[in-house]
Protein backbone atom coordinates (compact mmCIF):
# COMPACT_ATOMS: atom_id res chain seq x y z
CA UNK A 1 0.00 0.00 0.00
CA UNK A 2 2.27 2.79 -1.18
CA UNK A 3 -0.57 5.04 -2.26
CA UNK A 4 -1.11 8.03 0.01
CA UNK A 5 -4.66 9.23 0.33
CA UNK A 6 -6.05 12.38 1.85
CA UNK A 7 -8.15 11.47 4.90
CA UNK A 8 -10.40 14.04 6.53
CA UNK A 9 -11.96 13.44 9.93
CA UNK A 10 -15.02 15.67 10.25
CA UNK A 11 -15.95 16.51 13.83
CA UNK A 12 -19.30 18.21 14.20
CA UNK A 13 -20.41 17.05 17.65
CA UNK A 14 -19.79 18.20 21.19
CA UNK A 15 -17.83 15.99 23.60
CA UNK A 16 -19.24 13.96 26.56
CA UNK A 17 -22.96 14.22 25.78
CA UNK A 18 -22.40 11.50 23.21
CA UNK A 19 -19.43 9.26 22.44
CA UNK A 20 -18.78 10.37 18.86
CA UNK A 21 -15.98 12.82 19.69
CA UNK A 22 -14.09 10.24 21.76
CA UNK A 23 -14.51 7.44 19.27
CA UNK A 24 -13.47 9.76 16.45
CA UNK A 25 -10.25 10.48 18.32
CA UNK A 26 -9.65 6.74 18.71
CA UNK A 27 -9.82 6.35 14.93
CA UNK A 28 -7.42 9.25 14.41
CA UNK A 29 -4.91 7.64 16.78
CA UNK A 30 -5.03 4.29 15.00
CA UNK A 31 -5.14 5.92 11.59
CA UNK A 32 -1.92 7.84 12.31
CA UNK A 33 0.02 4.58 11.95
CA UNK A 34 -0.99 4.27 8.29
CA UNK A 35 1.10 7.14 6.91
CA UNK A 36 -1.74 8.82 5.08
CA UNK A 37 -2.27 12.56 4.62
CA UNK A 38 -4.49 13.29 7.61
CA UNK A 39 -6.53 16.42 8.36
CA UNK A 40 -9.04 17.08 11.12
CA UNK A 41 -11.99 19.41 10.59
CA UNK A 42 -13.80 20.98 13.55
CA UNK A 43 -16.99 22.77 12.70
CA UNK A 44 -20.46 23.27 14.16
CA UNK A 45 -20.49 21.78 17.69
CA UNK A 46 -17.23 19.99 16.95
CA UNK A 47 -15.35 23.16 17.93
CA UNK A 48 -16.40 22.52 21.55
CA UNK A 49 -14.07 19.49 21.59
CA UNK A 50 -11.05 21.83 21.60
CA UNK A 51 -12.07 24.12 24.47
CA UNK A 52 -9.48 24.76 27.18
CA UNK A 53 -9.88 23.71 30.81
CA UNK A 54 -12.20 20.75 30.37
CA UNK A 55 -12.53 19.09 33.78
CA UNK A 56 -14.78 16.05 33.90
CA UNK A 57 -14.27 15.05 37.53
CA UNK A 58 -17.80 16.19 38.39
CA UNK A 59 -19.50 13.88 35.90
CA UNK A 60 -17.36 10.77 36.34
CA UNK A 61 -16.40 10.59 32.69
CA UNK A 62 -12.87 10.48 31.30
CA UNK A 63 -11.49 13.80 30.04
CA UNK A 64 -9.97 12.94 26.67
CA UNK A 65 -9.15 16.48 25.56
CA UNK A 66 -5.42 16.22 26.52
CA UNK A 67 -5.07 13.54 23.85
CA UNK A 68 -5.50 16.19 21.15
CA UNK A 69 -2.27 17.76 22.33
CA UNK A 70 -0.45 14.46 21.86
CA UNK A 71 -1.47 14.06 18.22
CA UNK A 72 1.49 16.12 16.98
CA UNK A 73 3.78 13.28 18.04
CA UNK A 74 1.83 11.05 15.65
CA UNK A 75 2.25 13.50 12.76
CA UNK A 76 -1.35 14.62 12.99
CA UNK A 77 -0.76 18.34 12.70
CA UNK A 78 -3.59 19.83 10.65
CA UNK A 79 -6.55 20.89 12.80
CA UNK A 80 -8.87 23.05 10.74
CA UNK A 81 -11.32 25.00 12.92
CA UNK A 82 -14.12 26.99 11.37
CA UNK A 83 -14.27 30.66 12.43
CA UNK A 84 -18.03 30.99 11.82
CA UNK A 85 -18.72 27.99 14.05
CA UNK A 86 -16.73 29.63 16.85
CA UNK A 87 -18.45 32.99 16.45
CA UNK A 88 -21.97 31.53 16.43
CA UNK A 89 -21.15 29.88 19.77
CA UNK A 90 -19.80 33.00 21.40
CA UNK A 91 -16.21 31.70 21.19
CA UNK A 92 -12.88 32.93 19.83
CA UNK A 93 -9.67 31.13 18.95
CA UNK A 94 -8.33 32.14 22.38
CA UNK A 95 -10.79 29.74 23.97
CA UNK A 96 -9.13 26.76 22.29
CA UNK A 97 -6.35 24.61 23.70
CA UNK A 98 -2.77 25.27 22.62
CA UNK A 99 -2.01 22.37 20.34
CA UNK A 100 1.39 22.30 18.69
CA UNK A 101 3.77 20.03 16.79
CA UNK A 102 7.46 20.03 16.07
CA UNK A 103 8.06 20.61 12.38
CA UNK A 104 10.78 18.15 11.38
CA UNK A 105 11.23 19.96 8.05
CA UNK A 106 11.99 23.21 9.86
CA UNK A 107 14.57 22.31 12.48
CA UNK A 108 11.86 20.88 14.78
CA UNK A 109 10.43 24.30 15.41
CA UNK A 110 7.25 24.20 17.48
CA UNK A 111 4.27 25.29 15.41
CA UNK A 112 0.53 25.57 16.08
CA UNK A 113 -1.60 22.67 14.84
CA UNK A 114 -4.83 24.65 14.94
CA UNK A 115 -5.55 26.66 11.82
CA UNK A 116 -8.67 28.78 12.00
CA UNK A 117 -10.29 28.96 8.58
CA UNK A 118 -13.44 30.58 7.31
CA UNK A 119 -16.43 28.68 6.00
CA UNK A 120 -15.44 28.91 2.35
CA UNK A 121 -11.97 27.63 3.15
CA UNK A 122 -13.48 24.76 5.14
CA UNK A 123 -15.72 23.88 2.20
CA UNK A 124 -12.69 23.87 -0.09
CA UNK A 125 -10.75 21.61 2.29
CA UNK A 126 -13.66 19.17 2.38
CA UNK A 127 -13.81 19.19 -1.40
CA UNK A 128 -10.14 18.23 -1.70
CA UNK A 129 -10.15 14.84 0.05
CA UNK A 130 -10.04 11.21 -0.97
CA UNK A 131 -11.78 9.84 2.13
CA UNK A 132 -14.11 11.71 4.46
CA UNK A 133 -14.89 10.11 7.82
CA UNK A 134 -17.82 11.76 9.59
CA UNK A 135 -18.39 11.81 13.32
Amino acid at each position, binding site marked *: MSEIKKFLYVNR*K*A*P*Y*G*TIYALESLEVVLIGAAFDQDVSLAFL*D*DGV*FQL*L*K*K*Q*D*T*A*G*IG*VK*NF*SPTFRALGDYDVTKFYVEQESLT*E*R*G*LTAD*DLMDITYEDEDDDYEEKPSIRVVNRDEMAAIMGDQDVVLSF
Partner: protein
Amino acid sequence: MSTLHTVNKSPFATTTLASCLNHALEGDAILLIEDGVYGGVVGTELAKALAAAKGVSLYVLSGDLTARGIDTARLVKGMKPIDYAGFVALATEHDRAQAWL
Protein backbone atom coordinates in the same frame (compact mmCIF):
# COMPACT_ATOMS: atom_id res chain seq x y z
CA MET B 1 -48.42 24.08 39.70
CA SER B 2 -45.20 24.39 37.75
CA THR B 3 -42.80 22.29 35.67
CA LEU B 4 -39.08 21.58 35.72
CA HIS B 5 -37.95 21.33 32.11
CA THR B 6 -34.63 19.64 31.35
CA VAL B 7 -32.79 20.22 28.07
CA ASN B 8 -29.81 17.99 27.27
CA LYS B 9 -28.97 18.96 23.70
CA SER B 10 -26.83 21.67 22.24
CA PRO B 11 -29.07 24.49 20.98
CA PHE B 12 -26.64 24.98 18.10
CA ALA B 13 -27.23 21.43 16.84
CA THR B 14 -30.93 20.98 17.52
CA THR B 15 -34.12 23.00 17.98
CA THR B 16 -34.87 21.37 21.34
CA LEU B 17 -34.15 24.35 23.59
CA ALA B 18 -36.10 26.64 21.28
CA SER B 19 -39.10 24.34 21.54
CA CYS B 20 -38.77 24.14 25.32
CA LEU B 21 -38.66 27.94 25.55
CA ASN B 22 -41.78 28.10 23.41
CA HIS B 23 -43.68 25.91 25.86
CA ALA B 24 -42.40 26.95 29.28
CA LEU B 25 -44.96 28.75 31.42
CA GLU B 26 -44.50 31.48 33.97
CA GLY B 27 -43.23 29.94 37.19
CA ASP B 28 -41.49 27.07 35.39
CA ALA B 29 -37.78 26.32 35.56
CA ILE B 30 -35.46 25.26 32.75
CA LEU B 31 -32.35 23.27 33.65
CA LEU B 32 -29.63 22.78 31.03
CA ILE B 33 -27.78 19.47 31.40
CA GLU B 34 -25.28 17.40 29.36
CA ASP B 35 -24.69 19.02 25.96
CA GLY B 36 -27.54 21.41 26.74
CA VAL B 37 -25.20 23.51 28.90
CA TYR B 38 -23.67 25.11 25.82
CA GLY B 39 -26.92 27.06 25.55
CA GLY B 40 -26.00 29.07 28.62
CA VAL B 41 -23.06 30.93 27.11
CA VAL B 42 -23.37 34.69 26.57
CA GLY B 43 -22.82 36.41 23.27
CA THR B 44 -24.95 34.23 21.02
CA GLU B 45 -28.24 34.74 19.21
CA LEU B 46 -29.75 32.17 21.53
CA ALA B 47 -28.70 34.00 24.68
CA LYS B 48 -31.09 36.77 23.67
CA ALA B 49 -34.00 34.32 23.49
CA LEU B 50 -33.10 33.01 26.94
CA ALA B 51 -32.97 36.52 28.33
CA ALA B 52 -36.44 37.11 26.91
CA ALA B 53 -37.97 34.12 28.74
CA LYS B 54 -40.04 36.04 31.26
CA GLY B 55 -40.97 34.45 34.56
CA VAL B 56 -38.94 31.30 33.85
CA SER B 57 -35.99 30.45 36.11
CA LEU B 58 -32.83 29.32 34.34
CA TYR B 59 -30.39 26.77 35.75
CA VAL B 60 -27.39 24.85 34.47
CA LEU B 61 -25.83 21.67 35.88
CA SER B 62 -22.38 22.76 37.04
CA GLY B 63 -20.67 19.38 36.60
CA ASP B 64 -21.61 19.37 32.93
CA LEU B 65 -20.49 22.96 32.52
CA THR B 66 -17.07 22.37 34.10
CA ALA B 67 -16.59 19.15 32.13
CA ARG B 68 -16.97 21.14 28.94
CA GLY B 69 -14.53 23.87 29.93
CA ILE B 70 -17.03 26.67 30.32
CA ASP B 71 -16.49 29.10 33.16
CA THR B 72 -19.58 30.17 35.09
CA ALA B 73 -18.51 33.78 34.42
CA ARG B 74 -19.59 33.22 30.81
CA LEU B 75 -23.17 32.31 31.65
CA VAL B 76 -26.03 34.50 30.54
CA LYS B 77 -27.25 36.84 33.25
CA GLY B 78 -29.58 35.20 35.74
CA MET B 79 -28.62 31.62 34.92
CA LYS B 80 -27.71 29.78 38.08
CA PRO B 81 -25.28 26.85 38.24
CA ILE B 82 -26.43 24.01 40.51
CA ASP B 83 -25.08 20.57 41.41
CA TYR B 84 -26.89 17.22 41.34
CA ALA B 85 -28.33 17.90 44.81
CA GLY B 86 -29.72 21.15 43.45
CA PHE B 87 -31.17 19.23 40.50
CA VAL B 88 -32.98 16.91 42.92
CA ALA B 89 -34.23 19.87 44.92
CA LEU B 90 -35.60 21.53 41.78
CA ALA B 91 -37.42 18.31 40.90
CA THR B 92 -39.11 18.29 44.29
CA GLU B 93 -40.01 21.98 44.15
CA HIS B 94 -41.89 21.67 40.87
CA ASP B 95 -44.97 19.54 40.29
CA ARG B 96 -43.62 17.57 37.38
CA ALA B 97 -40.50 17.15 35.27
CA GLN B 98 -40.51 17.24 31.50
CA ALA B 99 -37.43 16.08 29.62
CA TRP B 100 -36.96 17.73 26.23
CA LEU B 101 -35.17 14.96 24.34
